[in-house]
């Protein structure tokens, strides 16, 4: 199986190169447009001329743009994203410090979305057209249409302010209670899309002959769905889970702002407010790379689930 997978995996990795190149180019152009002279932006109008000259040299700012880009890429490949103007330390340090909180939130949100979404989708598909089906799919559409930041505010109002069950906001030194509301908020949209896709995909599959055959053999409904239908129905669901990764990343700045969650998203928003451009560019780059790698993982998951794709 591993040797079978090597070629398609390699092909997908190669296909990533132009996209990653494009991302880096876009971020570089943004940087150049926004800053004018990064050395001055870094040190301010009254910066020490000697230091400015040194930074100009280090980043090849006195050379043509393409040389600047190559130099910047060189720094980037060594993990050097520049220095934060505001915090006066390497951007990579700032990002590394904030990354774990966002990662934890994203994993929790995905877990909630996959579990709840699959459950809702399966429950709805078992009795299509029933009251349960309408109720669950109605909830899914509302979950998709509710803006993530408003949902966060309303959950916070209900469970923290009125009922007092959970903390209103903050990281709480990693306490589980602090994670619940942000993860529910961030996962809601994703839950809705997974539930809808699971339902329609299952309904598609149960009409196939082999499922009818399983029923005709006298297998119970649970065995038919669980053993025969679900595995094939999951293929489009995996796509939706992958696409949902983008929603998670997009929701991160909003959710983290609502819940004062010390992650990358809130850092990005704060950096825009402070016009701390190296941090902004670093965060945008990191988000984009996570997103691209996430899509790659989804592609790889296909290869494992659906052997037919390996052959193309």
């Amino acid at each position, binding site marked *: 199986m591993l040797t079978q997978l090597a070629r398609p995996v390699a092909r997908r990795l190669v296909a990533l190169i*132009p*996209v990653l190149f*494009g*991302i880096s180019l*876009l*971020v570089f152009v*943004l940087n150049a*447009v*926004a800053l004018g002279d990064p050395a001055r932006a870094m040190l301010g109008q009254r910066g020490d001329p000697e230091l400015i000259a040194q930074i100009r040299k280090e980043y090849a700012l006195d050379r043509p743009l393409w040389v600047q880009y190559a130099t910047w890429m060189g720094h980037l490949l060594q993990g050097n994203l520049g220095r934060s103007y505001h915090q006066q330390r390497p951007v990579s340090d700032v990002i590394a410090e904030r990354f774990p909180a966002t990662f934890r939130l994203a994993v929790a949100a995905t877990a909630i979305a996959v579990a709840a979404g699959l459950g809702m989708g399966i429950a709805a598909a078992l009795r299509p057209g029933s009251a349960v089906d309408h109720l669950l799919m109605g909830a899914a*559409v*509302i979950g*998709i*249409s*509710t*803006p*993530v*930041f*408003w949902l966060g*505010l*309303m959950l*916070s*109002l209900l469970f923290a*302010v009125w009922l007092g069950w959970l903390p*209103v906001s903050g990281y709480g030194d990693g306490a589980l209670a602090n994670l619940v509301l942000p993860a529910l908020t961030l996962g809601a949209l994703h839950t809705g899309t997974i539930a809808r896709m699971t339902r329609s995909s299952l309904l598609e599959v149960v009409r196939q002959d082999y499922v009818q055959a399983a029923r005709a053999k006298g297998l119970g409904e649970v065995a038919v769905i669980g053993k025969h239908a679900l595995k094939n129905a999951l293929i489009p669901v995996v796509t939706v889970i992958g696409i949902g990764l*983008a929603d998670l*990343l*997009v929701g991160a*700045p*909003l959710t983290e*702002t*609502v819940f004062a969650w010390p992650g990358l998203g809130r850092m*990005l*928003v704060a*950096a*825009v*407010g402070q*016009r701390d*451009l190296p941090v*902004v*560019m670093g*965060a*945008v780059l990191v*988000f*984009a790379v996570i*997103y*691209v790698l996430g899509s790659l993982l989804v592609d790889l998951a296909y290869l494992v689930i659906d052997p037919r794709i390996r052959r193309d």
Partner: protein
Amino acid sequence: MTERGPFRHHGVQVGGALVALFVGAALLAPWLAPVDPHEVPTGLAAASLRPPGPPNALGTDALGRDLLSRVLYGGRVSLLVGVGVELVAALIGALVGLVAGYYGGWLDGLLMRVTDTVMAFPSLILAIGLIAVFERPGLDKVFLVLVLLGWTTIARVVRGEVLSLKTRDYVQAARALGVPDTIIVFRHLLPNCLAPLLVAATIGVGGNMVAEAGLSFLGLGTQAPTISWGAMLAEGQTFLASAPWVAVFPGLALMLAVLGINLLGDGLRDMLDPRLKR
């Protein structure tokens, strides 16, 4: 379920009603709003953060301004950004998709690489990054940034349609007869792409509205005195415990408007794409 036509679908009915309500309220805001939404009443202490009830049906905000009037006026900004951005983005996207799909070759390769790269960013993250480039945020920047990011889906949809349409006999025949490319593209290809384009653009309107509200919520979108639901929600967060209505109503309005648009978009897709019918 035997009924035919556009209203066969419950979703389209509900969605259409919500969208009509939203558009109507936004357009008629100057006549519907009980008071000037910017008016700060004198005797501020008495009017500030007043709960819903007469004379303020939805209560007042921290400056004592009438929330109902502000929600109504906030809808205008939301509608303007949602539809305005989508019109421009759809125009760009349709052109890119038509050119890439029809001419193919290196031009298609180049345009699709650009599209892929823009799509490779989670859109709101890139929008936030782009806003950072400007000295100060504002409605015009939100508009520009959302257009820059919004054309890609339409471009992909149109290109996909064109790729399959251009192999059809009627297009081949037109080409063989020496009909100029512009006529083939605009008279024979574009009209046949309109259905999927319309569906994608409808969903796009809702996306733009949520993006504008999100940016404004973060303080990176419209600035006071422009009234935006997102900015109202940011204020509502401050008073969540003492005056929850400030956060409830603008968000509810946004949610219902987006829900309506999504239902309408889903329904349109089912109606226009017979392959999806059960």
